[in-house]
């Protein structure tokens, strides 16, 4: 049994008992309930305070978190190394553009678009990303470990080749514009809507879409990881043959998780596209895949909270360092020589990957969760 399994296990097995009035009063006594309460109030109110830069950074982080949750189910919980996550993000992002966009001419490319309602396009894009994962599953189901990792690397190269070359679908090098999401007649674009005297642009509006998407994805993933499928996935990770002997349909599970993780990546891709307002092939490269792997390791393998914490760490770090580069020691503003913020953030998260695995097996998420759970009665332990 490996270190990480030991670390991830408490997260999976200590699910709170759901429902019941007693459970509710019990909940009220827990500090964690109040933490959640305060956090949700803060999250809901943020668009009224933060400027667009921070909202956008937050949205990038939310999209990353959704993608990282998917990858964490695949790599963290099931032990399948995937370097191709960026490809599925691209499938989601571009499918959305193609499905929702109108046919037009842009940058010398005649673009094809189906002009579907945007909400439908978003759902279909997620499904398409899953389908792309399904198409790859003959390989995903047969290969393990390093073989799978490098085989998925091929997806990135194939994906970028297609993105650059299929100009009429993808718009080539300069990408294509992303149609703004529109739900029940409300469009999440840059036209200003004034809410409580605060002008709402696309970032403010999308903030709530991002929150909702992240919440749903996180809850769904938590359900899977804490339930029977989660235990089966961990069994496959820890001992594939033993899992098979115990009756877990290993191949089916592995292919299934691959599809599910691709769908998460697809959803992250759609959200990213909406925030970017333009999809650019350059973005969906190997670096992005590596960042996702860094996220789940830093945050904590195998858990939803880990993926979210890691995603926020990795995607906010460069933004924070750049923004405050004038006032931070050691980091200097670009153009003045010295350590650039971009480099500083790479050092930090490279070191974080190495250090977290060494000193904090289970990731950063363990730090946050360990504290509020101390007082909690240990009754959920025997539920298993």
């Amino acid at each position, binding site marked *: 049994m490996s270190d990480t399994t030991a670390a991830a296990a408490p997260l999976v097995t200590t699910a709170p008992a759901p429902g019941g009035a007693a459970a509710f009063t019990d909940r009220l006594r827990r500090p964690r309930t109040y933490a959640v*309460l305060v956090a*949700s109030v803060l999250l809901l109110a943020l668009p009224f305070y933060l400027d667009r830069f921070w909202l956008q950074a937050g949205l990038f982080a939310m999209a990353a978190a959704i993608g990282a949750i998917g990858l964490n189910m695949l790599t963290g919980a099931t032990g399948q190394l995937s370097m191709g996550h960026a490809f599925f993000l691209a499938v989601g992002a571009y499918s959305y553009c193609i499905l929702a966009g109108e046919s037009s001419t842009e940058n010398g490319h005649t673009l094809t678009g189906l002009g579907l309602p945007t909400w439908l396009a978003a759902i279909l894009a997620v499904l398409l990303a899953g389908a792309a994962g399904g198409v790859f599953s003959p390989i995903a189901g047969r290969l393990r470990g390093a073989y799978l990792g490098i085989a998925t690397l091929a997806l990135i190269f194939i994906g970028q080749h297609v993105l650059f070359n299929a100009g009429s679908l993808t718009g*080539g090098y300069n990408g294509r514009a992303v149609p703004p999401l529109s739900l029940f007649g409300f469009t999440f674009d840059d036209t200003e809507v004034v809410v409580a005297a605060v002008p709402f642009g696309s970032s403010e509006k999308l903030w709530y879409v991002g929150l909702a998407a992240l919440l749903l994805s996180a809850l769904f993933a938590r359900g899977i990881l804490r339930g029977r499928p989660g235990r089966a996935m961990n069994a496959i990770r820890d001992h594939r043959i033993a899992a098979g002997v115990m009756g877990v349909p290993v191949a089916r599970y592995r292919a299934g998780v691959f599809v599910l993780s691709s769908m998460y990546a697809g959803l992250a891709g759609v959200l990213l596209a909406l925030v*970017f307002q333009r999809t650019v092939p350059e973005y969906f490269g190997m670096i992005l895949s590596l960042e996702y792997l860094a996220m789940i390791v830093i945050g904590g393998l195998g858990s939803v909270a880990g993926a979210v914490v890691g995603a926020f760490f990795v995607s906010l770090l460069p933004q924070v360092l*750049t923004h405050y580069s004038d006032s931070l020691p050691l980091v200097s503003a670009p153009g003045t020589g010295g350590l650039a913020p971009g480099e500083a953030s790479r050092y930090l998260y490279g070191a974080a990957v190495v250090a977290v695995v060494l000193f904090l097996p289970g990731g950063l998420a363990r730090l946050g969760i360990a504290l509020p759970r101390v007082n909690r009665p240990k009754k959920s332990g025997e539920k298993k």
Partner: protein
Amino acid sequence: MKLRALTAVVAALTVTLVGCSGKATEGKGDEQDKAGIKTGPGVTSSTISLGVLTDMTGVYASLGKSVTQAQQLWAKQINAKGGICDRKIELTVRDHGYDPQKAIAGYTELEPKVLGFAQFIGSPFVAAVEQRIEGKDKGLVLPQAWSANLLGSPYIRVVGATYDVETINLIDHLLKEKRIAKGDKIGHVYFEGDYGENALTGSKHAAKEAGLTVVEQKIKPTDNDMTAQVAALKQAGVKAVVVSAGPRQAASLVGVAAATGFNVPVVGNNSAYAPQLLKTQAGPALLKDYYIASSTLPIGDPGDGPSLLAKEYASQYPNDVLDNGVVAGWTAASIFGEALDKACDNKDLTREGVDKALLTIKGYGTEFGVTHDFSDPAAPSTRESVIMKPDATAPGGLKVISPASVSDAAKSFTVK
């Protein structure tokens, strides 16, 4: 039911919090200062803030560094002379390392604080924020990219000839020098992406005009060994090669061609050369039969403009390479300055005022050998190209062999 209670608490608290937001709309509109000059975002009574979105740690690091430092030098010089409109110029630099996410974040961060952008490297990123620039922001952006795809917007203005026009001029130079003739084949090695593809549009146009055939070889920025490309072009029997790629690819191509006895002239766009290359194995071959087109005189030119700039840049940044990025950066910044000057005369330092002022600039920039005309947003600011050749003795490693001129094929070419 219990859950609903919690939700209600959250909602109530949120509404309270929301009510006291400081972000509520205040007079964000234009103001007027004492001298009656209208000002908007990025302009205070004492400073004019300009944004610089550059790449100093990514693939275009060497270009980004030169351009940015040249622009910082320009700002310093202007401020030493008392600034523009009695205001100091302040450059805020953000290095995106050619990462789309950081580039977009940089734009979002700086946009509310600056009047416009004196530099924006990476045409995909410019394209990504184009909607925002044209929709609401309306700040002037001078990208350091020369793709025709960037033309057409009154706010995003390309300084210099676009790649297609430049390529046409390059091929015209070869025709004039009788290095190629009607019926010949020419090779074109180009990057994927709009730099290469835009240049290809140009070479195809020039080929059609002159009765040539283009043999295409598309490469990626990560390809550094051009052996296979040279073999293919040799096989096809091309009489000259156009290279629309980076300096490394150009060096490899020229080096391999020379070494394998494939003696044809090679011509490249302004991005296909860096003085550092002369120290590599390909150095001697580059000195022999390689030509570069650009929309400015090289930094090593004895003319007044370049030599003064070279001197000042070298004293400011003694350890850094002098290359054409320096001229390009300085030119872009000084054009922005010129627009600010005019906007100041019109008593309108708002974003719209600067955009309008730029439209009135014609015949600017003679000290760098090329005159720019910004009156038509749909056209490049010039169709002229200076043809240059590597030279180991000149600073910046280039000397002029044919002064700025525009070929007939480039004149008749409809951009975009």
